[in-house]
């Protein structure tokens, strides 16, 4: 998501790296680059300028320049400031035991309706009883969209009728809640421009009537310089308590997140990470700052791996006996953590190693799986058995070609060699490890 910004900044810092000491002029030059990088990432002008000024003050004002590794210190300062700019600690919306009302606001096409569905799904799976209110009477079929979403996730939808007053909506909601127990009401409103006085008044009235305990502004991650005035206007006219960034799974550099956060001072609760109904993730400022700087996102990776823990099938008896079956098991495990491309992005340094625009063919993994699955147990344990006729059979069985099978076998041999090398090196804290008996 933030890769391009990360690459830019990385380049700036690489030029600083390894210097014994930095002059003030060098730091200033580097920070100018940082500012251009931020602007290219759609960070608002004012915010970018503010940011570099703060970093500069900290970097030059302290004894940073004289320290042992000044470049590392500068990077640390930029990292901390980024975290600060993105909102410090991760924050979640305020959720009471019952009678929660959350309202979603935003420009047209920011993704309010989809986000409403995702929120309802998320909290339903946590044991809440959500109710969706379709208050978008502007766009044709918007209410129908929410109705369909509600049906898919099994959440009831209360539809606001054309020309209904906020008081009437409130009364209808009260009526509904008296008959049905619901502890989280999510209100999807019509998209509106921040300068559209009439519509801004209308949504402010609706907020007044419903009295939500959270009012969230939904912002498209691809938004440019406008993110700042938009966030400002919504906060001033309606009042918001938090932000949700959508479409962060594209290659948008996400500067809008920084700007909106900066101008409103409100936390970013969630980030929309896919089109699917479960694609809404909590926003972690520190992790994202690390990702921007190319430091990887090990925490998220660990979290994902943790979910898979406890279902460990028998691993290879030893690294030396790495069989095709083991390869398949490992692969399936990794696959369950998400797409390969996503995982690689979280590994520190990996984003730098991959040329820009690299795409890993996720289908390749499926093919490998198919090929190994088409082998007999015996073949998986003793790959030497695979002669030409067996390979032909496997290719036919897995819907691939003999070349694909050959390629897989070559990769497997390489991996096995690698494993052997690892096995030979004695694990340091394990006296008598099998590596000793070489």
């Amino acid at each position, binding site marked *: 998501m933030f890769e391009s910004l990360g690459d830019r900044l990385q380049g700036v810092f690489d030029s600083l790296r390894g210097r014994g000491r930095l002059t003030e002029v060098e730091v200033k030059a580097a920070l100018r680059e940082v500012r*251009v990088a931020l*602007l*290219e*990432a*759609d960070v608002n*002008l*004012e915010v970018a*300028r503010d940011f570099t000024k703060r970093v500069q003050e900290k970097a030059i004002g302290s004894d940073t320049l004289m320290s042992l590794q000044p470049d590392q210190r500068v990077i640390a300062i930029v990292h901390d400031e980024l975290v600060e700019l993105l909102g410090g600690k991760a924050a979640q919306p305020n959720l009471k035991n019952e009678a929660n009302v959350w309202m979603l606001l935003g*420009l*047209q*096409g*920011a*993704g309010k309706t*989809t986000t409403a569905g995702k929120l309802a799904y998320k909290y339903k799976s946590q044991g809440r009883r959500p109710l969706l209110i379709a208050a978008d009477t*502007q*766009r*044709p*079929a*918007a209410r*129908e*969209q*929410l*109705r*369909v*979403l509600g049906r*898919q996730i099994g959440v009831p939808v209360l539809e606001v009728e054309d020309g209904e007053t906020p008081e009437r909506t409130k009364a209808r909601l009260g009526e509904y809640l008296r008959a049905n127990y619901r502890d989280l009401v999510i209100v999807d409103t019509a998209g509106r*421009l*921040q*300068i559209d006085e009439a519509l801004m008044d209308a949504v402010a009235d609706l907020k007044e009537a419903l009295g939500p305990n959270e009012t969230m502004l939904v912002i*498209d*991650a*691809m*938004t*440019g*310089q*406008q*993110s*700042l*005035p*938009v966030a*400002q*206007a919504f906060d001033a006219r309606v009042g918001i308590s938090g932000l949700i960034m959508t*479409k962060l*799974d*594209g*290659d*948008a*550099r996400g*500067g*809008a997140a920084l700007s909106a956060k900066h*101008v409103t001072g409100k936390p970013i609760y969630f980030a929309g990470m896919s*089109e699917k109904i479960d694609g809404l993730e909590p926003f972690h400022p520190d992790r994202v700052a690390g990702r921007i700087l190319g430091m990887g996102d090990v925490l998220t990776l660990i979290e994902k791996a943790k979910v898979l823990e406890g279902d460990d099938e028998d691993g290879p008896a030893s690294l030396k006996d790495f069989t095709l079956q083991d390869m398949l098991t490992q692969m399936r495990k990794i696959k369950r953590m998400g797409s390969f491309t996503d995982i690689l992005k979280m590994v520190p340094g990996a984003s730098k190693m991959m040329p820009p625009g690299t*795409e890993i063919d996720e289908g390749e993994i499926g093919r490998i799986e198919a090929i190994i699955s088409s082998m007999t147990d015996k073949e998986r344990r003793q790959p030497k058995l695979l002669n030409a006729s067996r390979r032909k059979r496997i290719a036919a069985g897995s819907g691939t070609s003999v070349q694909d099978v050959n390629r897989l076998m070559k990769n497997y041999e390489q991996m096995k060699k690698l494993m052997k090398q690892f096995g030979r090196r004695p694990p340091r804290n394990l006296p008598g490890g099998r590596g000793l008996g070489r």
Partner: protein
Amino acid sequence: MAWFDRLRQGLGKTRDLLTTDVRDLGRAWEMEWDDLEFALIGADTGAKIAAEIVAEAKRERERGTSFRESLEKALLDQLEPNRMRQKLRRVGFNLDVSRNLVEVKGKVVMVVGVNGVGKTTTIAKLGQYYTERGQRVMFAAGDTFRAAATAQLEVWGGRLGIPTVSGPDGSDPGAVAFDAAHARRARGLDLLFVDTAGRLHTKHNLMEELKKVKRVITKADPDEPREVWLVLDAVTGQNGLAQAKKFHEAVGVTGVVVTKLDGTAKGGILLPIVRELELPIKFIGVGEKAEDLQPYDAAAYVRALLDMPETAAA
């Protein structure tokens, strides 16, 4: 923040401009070059293009042209997708003849873009635009992914009296496009607009699906679609260029439609798109009503860009 105040002052002058007599422009309005650069970046043109415009305007200014005119010239220069015409413009030809009708090559227009830019709404407006000009139009509700997107286009089709070909939600968009292309040919209608589901340009599989929809249309109606229009939201920042590039690579974009220019967004990202990809802008959407979709005119756009009222913060 002295620079910021200066910028605001400069923009204040932009506002005053609206009430100033056109002939006084040269004298009434002048801005620091640095401030101009910031203002352009603030309009999402990107740092590189902003610097180019400032350099070009400076050159023009030194020749004694008024500030406003220099700036207009520099902007128009950037907005000319055709290199030949750009040269002609530089030597002084005025090429901005207002066109009455945006001509569509061929009969089928595929409409593509990322999520939430307003593809379906734009198609409805395009339908009205061409219907009013005597063309017989048809819609294909090819967004079978988003819940109720098909219904949204059907509602519009009903209102405008435009036949709409659709399939059930979640069905193959290629099948809908194929049926529609067939139907258009069989009924001999003038134009078919094919809606597609919004997709992020980074999703490999979804872009492949888009390529397939295009291939399938060709199968039903050889040589079509002759036009593929990319819909772009005016609030989009620098990511807009990446969007345009990826869609262009995948399906060969022939024109761009910019929506939501009715806010304070200026759609400055158009400049690098026109500059780098040499794609023409076809329409701009300046409001919610159907007649708010207007044929794009570079000169008018530049004037609007310079005169648009500013919010205090920008």
